[in-house]
């Protein structure tokens, strides 16, 4: 038994629903009690579906438990087939139905329906949503291809054929990622054979082995299917997920190699390392090198999400944005190893957890200046007054924008640059705030003009009310900013403790000259420095000793 406040992932049958809803001609019958229909609204409300997800529920009740439930499930499957005439039926159970052991999947086979019926074992009490999605996709693909013998290598074609595996309903930006990846493939002269499961039909599944290899776009969902296609049909699959500039370039190279095509039509115009607008199809590399972006240097960032998006974010944060990653984690236990390795490479210990409260504690301890997370972390960050961008499911309706906004490929790199920088204070505005910080309109309590009134930089929350200081200290503040900002991201968890040394009036006055958005951290670091050395009270000298210590 595990106490859970909020969950990152739904139960496995919601993953199965995502697969069914992605497909054009599949119907899913879920053996489930009343209430489980709530999952429909994930599709109709979060993703604004204009149609119902293709799911029927058996809605058994307490009075059916004597033995009627199995018959109910069988009838529901027959009725759903008659009404919806799908080309394939999925039959599964929600948690409660699993306890009844009616085995509706097996029962449904006896109905003699003229289409394949795939019974799912979803292990509701040990597995979760993404596993459910990947298991459902795998079972469905296997079932459709069960009678297809291992085909000889596809005859030599003029244009290589490839499948895109993994994009689903309720996945993060899948709708637009497909378009972006398709554009890359087109530039390379590679043709897409099938995109599965989003928008696919059973016929598309049948054609999967016609392609020469697979793009494993969302490993959480498609890895087992890609592995099975490799084993059964000798189809290799990609290892790189094209999220971010460098990953996109790596992806192009990998795909070109698998397809046996020349990557130069695309990569030939990419010039990593060059600071020019023309050095890439994407504007992101130049934007990252633009002088305005120097204020991004060393910004501390906390990253949490599904493994695919968290890993991609960590790479972008360090290689493109120049951030310092102070926390990295995932709720995807299936891919914990990859995330642990990436964290270790960054000198961190990965947080692998689906306990929301644990994540919140980790964010509080890391004191980041930016959080890249899920809808959950958005709330955590909001409460702590830390800017946040959402990079992964679980998501909110606002993370399904009307506009084109992929996170993959060259345009995806642009989208990510914009959406990560936007929550942060703009560089120039930061300077203005320092220069005019005692101005009546520009005082410390005024939030950045482009941010909602609730979003405030992290340090503010702990800062006592600011009396007006007489001397404008812009020059000092600017210098202090850089060093102390670095100091601030040094060892985390320096929370105020009992017995913290007090400050002299002069020391306190000097502290107030430091820009408010790093002041809280400067205070904590100085106090920790003083406490460790038994210095009390804290003077101006102690402040600068600490600054020198942490800024080394």
């Amino acid at each position, binding site marked *: *038994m595990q106490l859970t406040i909020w969950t990152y992932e739904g139960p496995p049958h919601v993953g199965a629903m995502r697969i069914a809803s992605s497909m054009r001609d599949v119907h899913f019958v879920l053996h489930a009690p009343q209430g489980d*229909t709530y999952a429909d609204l994930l599709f109709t409300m979060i993703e604004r579906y204009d149609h119902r997800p293709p799911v029927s529920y058996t809605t058994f009740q307490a009075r059916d438990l004597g033995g009627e439930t199995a018959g109910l499930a069988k009838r529901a499957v027959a009725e759903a087939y008659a009404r919806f005439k799908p080309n394939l039926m999925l039959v599964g159970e929600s948690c409660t139905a699993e306890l009844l052991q009616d085995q509706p999947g097996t029962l449904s086979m006896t109905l003699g329906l003229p289409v394949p019926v795939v019974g799912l074992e979803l292990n509701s009490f040990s597995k979760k949503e993404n596993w459910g999605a990947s298991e459902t996709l795998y079972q469905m693909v296997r079932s459709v291809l069960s009678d297809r013998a291992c085909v000889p290598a596809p005859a030599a074609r003029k244009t290589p054929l490839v499948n895109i595996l993994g994009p689903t309903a309720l996945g993060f930006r899948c709708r637009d990622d497909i378009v972006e990846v398709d554009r890359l493939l087109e530039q390379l002269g590679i043709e897409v054979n099938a995109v599965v499961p989003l928008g696919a039909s059973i016929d598309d599944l049948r054609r999967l082995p016609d392609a020469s290899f697979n793009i494993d776009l969302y490993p959480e969902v498609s890895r087992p299917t890609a592995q099975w296609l490799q084993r059964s049909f000798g189809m290799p699959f990609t290892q790189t997920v094209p999220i971010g500039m460098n990953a996109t370039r790596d992806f192009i190279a990998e795909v070109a190699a698998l397809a046996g095509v020349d990557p130069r039509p695309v990569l030939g115009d990419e010039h990593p390392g060059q600071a020019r607008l023309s050095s890439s199809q994407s504007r992101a590399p130049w934007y990252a090198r633009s002088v305005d972006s120097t204020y991004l240097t060393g910004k501390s960032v906390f990253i949490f999400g599904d493994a695919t998006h968290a890993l991609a974010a960590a790479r972008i944060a360090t290689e493109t944005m120049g951030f310092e990653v102070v926390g990295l984690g995932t709720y995807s236990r299936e891919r914990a190893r990859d995330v642990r390795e990436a964290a270790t490479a960054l000198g961190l210990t990965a947080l692998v957890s689906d306990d929301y409260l644990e994540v919140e504690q980790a964010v509080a301890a890391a004191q980041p200046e930016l959080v890249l997370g899920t809808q959950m972390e958005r709330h955590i960050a909001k409460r702590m007054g830390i800017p946040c961008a959402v990079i992964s499911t679980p998501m909110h309706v606002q993370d399904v924008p009307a506009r084109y906004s992929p996170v993959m490929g060259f345009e995806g790199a642009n989208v990510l640059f914009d959406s990560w920088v936007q929550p942060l204070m703009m560089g120039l505005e930061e300077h203005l705030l320092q220069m005019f910080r005692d101005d009546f309109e520009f005082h410390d309590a005024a939030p950045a003009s482009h941010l909602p009134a609730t979003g405030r930089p992290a340090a503010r929350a702990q800062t006592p009310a600011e009396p007006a200081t007489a001397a404008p200290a812009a020059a000092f503040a600017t210098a202090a900013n850089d060093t102390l900002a670095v100091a601030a991201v040094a060892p985390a968890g320096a929370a105020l403790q009992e017995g913290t040394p007090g400050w002299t009036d002069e020391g306190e006055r000097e502290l107030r000259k430091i820009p408010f958005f790093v002041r809280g951290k400067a205070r904590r670091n100085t106090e920790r420095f003083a406490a460790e050395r038994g210095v009390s009270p804290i003077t101006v000298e102690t402040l600068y000793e600490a600054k020198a210590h942490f800024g080394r």
Partner: protein
Amino acid sequence: MNEMAVPIALQRAAGPAAPLKVLRERGQHEVFCGLTGIVWLHRKLQDAFFLVVGSRTCAHLIQSAAGVMIFAEPRFGTAILGERDLAGLADANDELDRICTQLIERRPEIKTLFLVGSCPSEVIKLDLGKAAERLSARFLPQVRVLSYSGSGIETTFTQGEDNALLSLVPILPGSDARQLLVVGCLPDVVEDQFRRTFDALGIGPVHFLPGRRAASLPPVGANTDLLLAQSFNGATVRALVARGARIVPAPYPIGAEGTSAWFGAACAAWSVPEAARDAVLAPLAERARRSLARHREWLAGKRLFMLPDSQMEIPIARFLHRELGMELVEVGTPYLDRMMVEAELPLLPEGVTLSEGQDVERQLDRLRAARPDLTICGLGLANPLEADGFATKWSIELVFTPIHGYEQAADLADVCARPLRRRAQLTV
């Protein structure tokens, strides 16, 4: 405009009740389970924690139904059963004790802990009643532990509230003092309005079940009059009657007319003189009627189809028909508890189709054939129906926002008129 709405006049206007046509349906229910009630109950009972003993599905349902996740540590959570718990029951009880202990240590402000049963806990026959007794014995007087079922195999949506309140009935203090008890969870703003009106009418003492704290419970006894605010608390009402209270029959305080009838019934039971009653209620009713006028323009003559959801469909349909002139095509309700709608049914127009239970596919077939002007339905169906050309109002808003009483009558009308106004305005 001059109709003084007292219950007697209201029933006469309707004439003798025609035999009711009820369509009973069995099939896929597109309705939440009773766990969903936690969303509003935990806001109302500010010293209570609701611990669902269930599965990941239960946790996901509540957070999806709540729609927003704004509380760091809300006063509800789920003890998710794992494979280890399913292996042996003794283990599950130990685990539950461990989690409750952990929770109570972490949240010392909690005075009442509700263990909420779910489909899986019912199926594995985990006895939460016993667990609650055991834990109460350990944690009283600091924390009282109660239990009720919100499971989908036994309850629909708002029945969760009924079961939660039912679990409080045995521990309500006894009192033979003459008093009025309003039964059903109401938003604080409505409760305050009602208190002011009862004060003005000279009716008192008035208690509310639930109050704002689970630990401060209203008394009940032989001289307690029950005035029902929500039509889904049948089990609670029966238990209160078993403790000696008696029901003051009245329509529900939905709409100006319904609210007048509701207060009117209380006035009759408390022998408030007619003049005094009218002096208080008439201006409030008049103001409410005035504010309904502009919504009537949009709703009068429009055809309404209600899918089953909150169990408040019958009072809401009565209001939309009688005060706003809507035609009722079909009024769906998850189940029909005649005792709870005794005063409402005669107010429905003759020949209305009432449906009980649901087979959602067949109901949607009827809906498409009937082509109503407005459909009230759940969130899973609203957008798909809009895309099919139907104007919809999602029903959960009727549960999560204040709709009772004079001052909210126009809000309820507005919520229903808005989809029609919007359709008329948009040209995209």
